[in-house]
């Protein structure tokens, strides 16, 4: 399980996160909170993509910055700028080669992404870019999925499939979203991240 211990993150002396502590004990979470409060930064830190200023983040008792731990984490966020000079296929092939996992053909078909595989990432539409980002997060079947606004830009069918997929997902799922399909979903524990950098469990 993911644990944040006294986590602080500053950008040029401005504290985005200040002494945040939280234990994600349940399987599914939906984090809500005002825009710009630091939800995305929290996910980036939880995936080990940004350095901490203070504190520690561990997943199953191992630091998220270790390569072995990263194998068990999957993240999708619009903030992660993907190499836009590659095709989607090349991006996925490289990802699978890194994680030593099979090419995610089934996921690609379910998301209706096959036609876009040979398209360069820079030429993908907003929805297709989101699908590529989701495929990178899901392809290696991580034990913990960190999804930042996962349904933004998705078409109806893909959105329905994703919700169903996440519902049945065996690992931990942490999403940030304002959509009612997550916030009013009984499968997700709703936690609010507030201005005081505290998590409050609303349900």
């Amino acid at each position, binding site marked *: 399980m993911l644990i944040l211990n006294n986590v602080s993150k500053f950008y040029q002396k401005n504290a985005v996160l200040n002494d945040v502590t939280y234990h994600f004990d349940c399987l599914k979470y939906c984090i809500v909170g005002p825009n710009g409060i630091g939800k995305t930064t929290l996910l*980036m830190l939880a995936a080990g993509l*940004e350095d901490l200023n203070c504190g520690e983040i561990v997943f199953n008792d191992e630091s998220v910055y270790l390569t072995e731990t990263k194998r068990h984490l999957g993240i999708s966020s619009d903030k992660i700028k993907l*190499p836009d*000079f590659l*095709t989607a296929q090349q991006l996925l*092939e490289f990802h699978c*080669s890194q994680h030593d996992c099979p090419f995610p053909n089934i996921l690609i078909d379910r998301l209706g992404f096959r036609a876009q595989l040979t398209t360069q990432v820079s030429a993908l539409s907003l929805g297709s870019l989101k699908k590529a980002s989701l495929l990178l997060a899901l392809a290696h079947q991580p034990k913990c999925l960190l999804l930042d606004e996962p349904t933004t830009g998705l078409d109806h069918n893909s959105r329905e499939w994703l919700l169903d997929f996440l519902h049945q997902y065996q690992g931990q799922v942490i999403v940030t979203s304002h959509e009612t399909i997550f916030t009013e979903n009984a499968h997700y524990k709703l936690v609010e991240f507030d201005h005081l950098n505290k998590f409050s469990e609303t349900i």
Partner: protein
Amino acid sequence: MYKYSLVRGKIYYHELKQLLPSVANLLAFLLSILYLAISASILTALISLSVIADINTSIEQRIIYQLGYSVLLYFLIRIQKSAILGLNYEHYLASLPAPKILKHTNTVILTVVAGNLPLLAPLFLLMFTPSLSIFINQLHFPIFALSILIVALISLKNKTFPWLSFVFTPLVFVFCVEEGSVSPMSINSIWLFIMVVEAYYEPLSFITDKSLRIKRYWQIRWIAIIKKPASILTRIFLSGLFIGMAAYVQNKMGQVANDYLQVLFIWVLSILIGSYQFDNEKFYLHYQYYLNGLLNRAGLRYCLDISPAICITLISCIALYLWLHFSLNLIVLLPLEVLVTIICVSKFHRNFFIIPSLLSGFLLYIQ
């Protein structure tokens, strides 16, 4: 109609302004140290035209000079390709109701501006041909001038490097053609024909990066470099120009540079090549989160990313040894100084040149 040209001109100017910061640190250094040598270096390419025009030039020398001239022009225009064609605004430009002829005319004008003297000089020289009989006797030069126009076309039109024209053909000429067996006109005609074929058919374009299966990190970096080659091409262009200029001066003076000059030369070259690391640092910053998520080690990535600079360094070392007859003891300093410069770029950014300069100063002192 006038307004369309104005837009294209403004785009060209704006794009060049965008391009300059990527080499600004290097240019600032070069301008402060070598402001006289830079103007001289541009003239070096033009001086080589006299060797090319001479009908008695040996095949080997002809191939080297013509290839050098063509490659320099190719890089000069290739670096500015996006600015000339307005690629970042292509959809907007396509939406404008300007006639095709106007669009092409603007592209030609901007290409001439971008190619500048190296593009125009061979054509200007043709205008000073004294008579028709001389023109016919020296037909190899008009054909070369024509091939220079094709080089400009290739650098704008083709997506892949012209391997046939710039690698395969010169190698065949140098190693397979005996001196005196083929006339300069025939050589230039065959070369021109191959360039035209490559310009229109791009026979090696089937090797596209889209079909490349990506398994390793270095492949990603390689594609990134191919997609935006301006930075690496600038280094190759300037290094080639610098070495070529020194070779020309040495050749004319009939002397090899002394140790002091060799250390100075290596210092400038190391700053020139090592500053390529700015491109890597920009890449790290742009794809920061994606790269942080990769499972391979950052140290290993760093080593792979500096390999293009190391390659240019090693090729330069060979050129310094074989062509400029530099001492081996001093040549080994080049890779060392390039590595120091690369590390200094990562650590000190704009002040990158201080430590390599102090190192060179120390070497000069102990010489």
